[in-house]
């Protein structure tokens, strides 16, 4: 048993923590208001080789492990949740499926620009009528003369406006009345492909969330990702990895809220004493510290299992579920400790609370995580 990070992991943490404090945090408040995508921090992250962090060096990646990925997501999210989700989706939804299921050709063509940061990574699964029940996919891809003709729509897709191509799921066949779902890589500049960026969100305002509309979009059949009919299986595997990212995001946002609350409690005086001298507040802060520590440990465990090549579905679900729920609690308590000031934007904690809510919804809701865990424990 060894709880130490490796020297690489530690160097990555130090580097990304300093970067997040200096380059990401200062604009976070403003970006939340203006909804401006954090393009400048990402340009620098690309220069530093972070955009391809866990992918093989032969495609321009960094060859680092999942623990390092979790560390980077946590630190970016601590500074700015929108930057955190953008990065997490870029790697775990955008790059990972191509790395896992792509052919050599596809990796060269589609993974390389993701690693260099030339393109953001995105993944189109959710549809207006298919969320938790992704089997309800209605988008179709019909084979015709060596091409897929794709029709349908997707909703809530992260990063698509900044992606040069993305994988999406579509029905490619019907067998015995059962849908056959496959994943297909589609260039975002294809004719008939519209990306609409006008959601009014509760939080994560600077992240890019889009609707995709596909009308007779033609792509060559070589763009099939993985095996035909295995789209469903593939995205379940993809989401397992993504959940580690969401868990790490939750730990980062919770950590930011906790640090603000602790500092405020030490400075704010009421009844002649600082808030941190009231046991009621001390216990809140102690609970926050405790929950964050547990959540981080679970995130690291899931990431470590993945790095060892072991089964990690259950742990990924557990870390995602636990971390996102404690993140909601911690951010809410951070607002509480700030009193009326916490309700004001200037104090940042209300932003953390709004950003946190998505974590209980995206990449499988808390209910879906409980379904996954129940299945894993043999219910």
């Amino acid at each position: 048993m060894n709880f130490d990070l490796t020297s690489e992991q530690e160097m990555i943490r130090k580097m990304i923590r300093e970067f997040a404090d200096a380059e990401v945090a200062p604009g976070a408040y403003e970006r939340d208001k203006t909804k401006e995508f954090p393009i400048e921090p990402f340009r620098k992250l690309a220069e530093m080789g972070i955009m391809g962090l866990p992918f093989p060096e032969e495609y321009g990646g960094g060859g680092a492990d999942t623990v390092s990925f979790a560390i980077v997501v946590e630190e970016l999210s601590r500074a700015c949740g929108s930057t955190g989700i953008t990065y997490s989706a870029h790697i775990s939804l955008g790059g990972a499926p191509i790395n896992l299921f792509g052919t050599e050709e596809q990796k060269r063509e589609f993974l390389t620009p993701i690693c260099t940061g030339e393109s953001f990574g995105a993944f189109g699964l959710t549809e207006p009528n298919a969320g938790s029940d992704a089997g309800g996919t209605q988008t179709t891809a019909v084979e015709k003369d060596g091409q897929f003709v794709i029709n349908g729509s997707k909703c809530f897709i992260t990063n698509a406006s900044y992606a040069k191509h993305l994988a999406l799921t579509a029905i490619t066949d019907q067998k015995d009345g059962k849908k056959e779902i496959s994943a297909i890589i589609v260039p975002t500049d294809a004719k008939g492909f519209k990306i609409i960026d006008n959601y009014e969100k509760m939080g994560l305002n600077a992240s890019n969330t889009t609707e995709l509309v596909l009308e007779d979009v033609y792509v060559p059949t070589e763009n099939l990702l993985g095996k035909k009919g295995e789209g469903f299986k593939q995205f379940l595997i993809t989401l397992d990895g993504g959940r580690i990212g969401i868990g790490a995001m939750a730990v980062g946002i919770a950590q930011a809220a906790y640090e603000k609350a602790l500092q405020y409690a030490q400075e704010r005086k009421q009844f002649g004493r600082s808030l941190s001298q009231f046991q009621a507040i001390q216990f809140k802060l102690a609970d926050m510290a405790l929950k964050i520590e547990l959540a981080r440990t679970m995130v690291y465990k899931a990431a470590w299992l993945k790095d060892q090549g072991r089964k990690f579905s259950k742990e990924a679900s557990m870390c995602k579920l636990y971390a996102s729920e404690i993140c909601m609690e911690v951010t809410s308590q951070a607002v509480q400790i700030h009193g009326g000031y916490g309700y004001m934007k200037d104090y940042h904690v209300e932003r953390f609370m709004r950003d946190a809510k998505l974590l209980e919804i995206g990449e499988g809701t808390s209910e879906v995580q409980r379904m996954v865990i129940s299945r894993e424990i043999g219910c």
Partner: protein
Amino acid sequence: MNIYVLLKRTFDTEEKITISGGKINEDGAEFIINPYDEYAVEEAIQVRDAHGGEVTVITVGGEDAEKQLRTALAMGADKAVLVNIEDDVENGDQFTTSKIISEYLKDKNADLIIGGNVAIDGGSGQVAPRVAELLNIPYVTTITKLEIDGTNVKIVRDVEGDSEVIETTLPLLVTAQQGLNEPRYPSLPGIMKAKKKPLDELELDDLDLEEDDVAAKTKTIEIFLPAQKEAGRILNGDLSDQVKELVQLLHTEAKVV
């Protein structure tokens, strides 16, 4: 060009300093590359990239300093040297460190040696100039600009906010002041490669030095924290009474008049 950087592992500037048993408490503290030495590493890398050659980072300290050396390697330095004195030297001072470094460097044909202007812990600013003296080469401290043309060097140095322009030649030692450059973040490929770069570990023996050769020239008598700042006091009442009270307090309480 053969470039050496003098690097020290120091306390993080954000750390709260506490003293126990007459020593600064190091338990659980974060350690970093001395910030001025970070400018030195950055400058060395830039000079190497412009003029070719190799950057070697050297530190005198203990096993723990490997982390800071690896970080410098991750930023882009080529090689690192750790002179481990943990077992040989109990209480070193600036003489100790500069003696060891100069012994190491004396046959290395260094063209350029860059150090930080001062280490933020001890704050003496002595080690680098002493190394230059011992090697008998010129040195310029607190530089904010470095231009190298063949063996001619043009330097801008900071003199308490003003600038002084100096011309000199290689081989040379300089110390970095804030403003010299903007140290880069180590890149991910840099971090992944750092482990594979050479890091030599030496002891006094390897430099043909005895403990006596490097024994400290100074002795630390006491280490203490500055007195805690007390809340200010506002005097009230008649102005002339206030003046009287103030003089009285300065005399009896503050004991400054």
